């Protein structure tokens, strides 16, 4: 559609209708002090080619993850993205159909969502998945709301080892619900203390959250936490990294009622802050409480497979005022990317991915083992991420490591019992032996206090 500005005659005609002498008169109600005096201070216009050059120069100043070797994690991971994810998700049939308002006409979109749901039910070991959420953090918030409303209780328990950003989002989403958030402490091994959780999870508790692996990358004692958390009837919410589910027990196996998480590692790039991709699966009993939409498979009148939106009564229709959520959409395009990604890997590929992640992390662990002044404070099994204790503040090493072209990780001060010298380092299947060696080299130089000339 061309941009057609109003002509002076159009403006005059409109002003005449409302009885204003000039456009400035429309702003007469605003104090002089806040009104622009004169013209906007803008440089003269540029030609198309000049704009292209200007923007290109600006873009060249960006430093992206592609230019650096990233050990950043904390919920979003630098993983290998197969070209097919971009190729298929940028097809206009998918890309332009943001949300199908006449859903059943878009059978292709619904089929993708159905397959995404199927993947997630298999990964999490819970029978029902929704069509996706905005991200893992809001999925957790929605899970807590579901628990609070359906249990009619107002206490929830989050572990100290939980992703602190997720905790903040959950806290924001629970505002206005008169909910008390209690923290389950971590023990000396950097995982949630099951005995302490058992004491906290009383009859007034609506939900207990377990994050596995936890924010420190450590594998939580999930069965013990499940038993302790559920003893008095609370719902167990498992917040999980789905990549880890190729190796670790699924939430369904240890009795989770709800599983949520962030599926960004499945073919979605690390953009500055998003978009991400949340997932949400539940036990049979909670089917009718699941937020958002669910796609079901049925047959049309000719007996052919057909996909339909199902159980959509909650936010949009007859249950609207009883809904625990106001999500009426889903993260369609990223769910497509994840579905393409998982289709390409298959079960065996996913297992290999998990193993590769694990092996690379262990390679880092052994590579840094002999560096003086550096230790790994928690010795338990870890996935994707490792806490490294440095001789000096982690923020210093973070800045120091940039000389090596490294994004070294996330300083952990304030999380569980971590100190200012603790750094969270993520290693995905994308990190090569050379990358890991470079990291160890930087760490060694930092620890020995060498002057570096890179």
């Amino acid at each position, binding site marked *: 559609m061309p941009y057609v500005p109003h002509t002076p005659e159009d403006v005059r005609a409109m002003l005449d209708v409302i009885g204003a002498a000039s456009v400035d008169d429309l702003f007469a109600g605003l104090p002089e002090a806040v009104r622009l005096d004169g013209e906007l201070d803008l440089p003269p216009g540029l030609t198309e080619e000049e704009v292209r050059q200007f923007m290109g120069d600006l873009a060249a100043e960006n430093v992206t993850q592609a230019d650096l070797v990233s050990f950043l994690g904390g919920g979003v991971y630098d993983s290998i993205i197969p070209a097919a994810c971009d190729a298929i998700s940028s097809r206009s049939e998918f890309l332009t159909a943001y949300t199908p308002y006449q859903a059943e006409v878009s059978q292709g979109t619904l089929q993708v969502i159905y397959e995404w749901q199927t993947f997630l039910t298999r990964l999490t070991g819970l029978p029902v998945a929704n069509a996706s959420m905005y991200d893992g953090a809001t999925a957790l918030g929605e899970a807590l709301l579901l628990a609070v409303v*359906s*249990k*009619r209780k107002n206490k929830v328990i989050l572990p100290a080892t939980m992703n602190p950003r997720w905790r903040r989002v959950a806290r924001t989403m629970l505002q206005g619900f008169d909910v008390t958030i209690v923290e389950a402490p971590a023990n000396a091994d950097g995982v949630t203390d099951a005995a302490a959780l058992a004491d906290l999870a009383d009859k007034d508790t609506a939900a207990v959250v377990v994050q596995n692996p936890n924010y420190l990358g450590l594998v939580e004692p999930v069965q013990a936490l499940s038993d302790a958390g559920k003893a008095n*009837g609370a719902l167990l919410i498992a917040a999980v990294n789905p990549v880890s589910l190729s190796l670790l027990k699924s939430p369904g196996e240890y009795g989770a009622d709800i599983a949520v998480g962030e599926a960004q590692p499945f073919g979605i790039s690390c953009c500055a802050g998003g978009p991400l991709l949340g997932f949400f699966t539940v036990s049979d009993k909670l089917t*009718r409480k699941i937020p958002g939409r669910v796609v079901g498979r049925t047959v049309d009148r000719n007996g052919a497979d057909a996909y339909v939106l199902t159980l959509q*009564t909650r936010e949009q229709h*007859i*249950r609207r005022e*009883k809904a625990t959520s106001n999500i009426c959409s889903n993260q369609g395009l990223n769910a497509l990317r994840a579905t393409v990604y998982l289709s390409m890997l298959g079960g065996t590929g996913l297992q290999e991915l998990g193993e590769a992640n694990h092996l690379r992390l262990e390679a880092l662990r052994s590579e840094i083992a002999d560096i003086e002044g550096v230790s790994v404070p928690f010795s338990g099994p870890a996935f994707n991420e490792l806490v490294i204790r440095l001789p000096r503040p982690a923020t210093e090493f973070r800045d120091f490591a940039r000389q090596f072209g490294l994004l070294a990780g996330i300083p952990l001060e304030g999380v569980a019992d971590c100190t200012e010298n603790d750094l969270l380092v993520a290693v995905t299947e994308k990190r090569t032996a050379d990358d890991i060696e470079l990291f160890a080299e930087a760490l060694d130089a930092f620890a020995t206090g060498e002057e570096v000339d890179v």
Partner: protein
Amino acid sequence: MIPDDRKYTQEHEWVQVEGDIATIGVTDHAASELGDIVYVDLPDTGSEFSAGDSVGSIESVKAVADLYLPISGEVVEINEGLDGDPGLVNSSPMDDGWMIKVRMTDSSEADGLMDAAAYEELLGN
């Protein structure tokens, strides 16, 4: 014909008292007004409520109604059969389609409810 072996509420629920246990369901009228019932959401056993609390919901193909507790007490049993067959509420609202059993904290609360004649009048029959 409204059975006179139980009491009734303004919300079209029935309450049948035996000892200190009250069995609660919805009336024939409520079930037929709601239409085909597809899901009944009931509270956990062991939970305690006061009279007037909303303790669950009844979802039909066209509407969702709250289930109110007409008397205070502790939920001692819920009709598990409704999970697999919520249509029982349509086919047998006054018997097999019962919803919850409550141990009453104050059995005199039941006295304040309508009897069959009063409920019949409410329905305008």
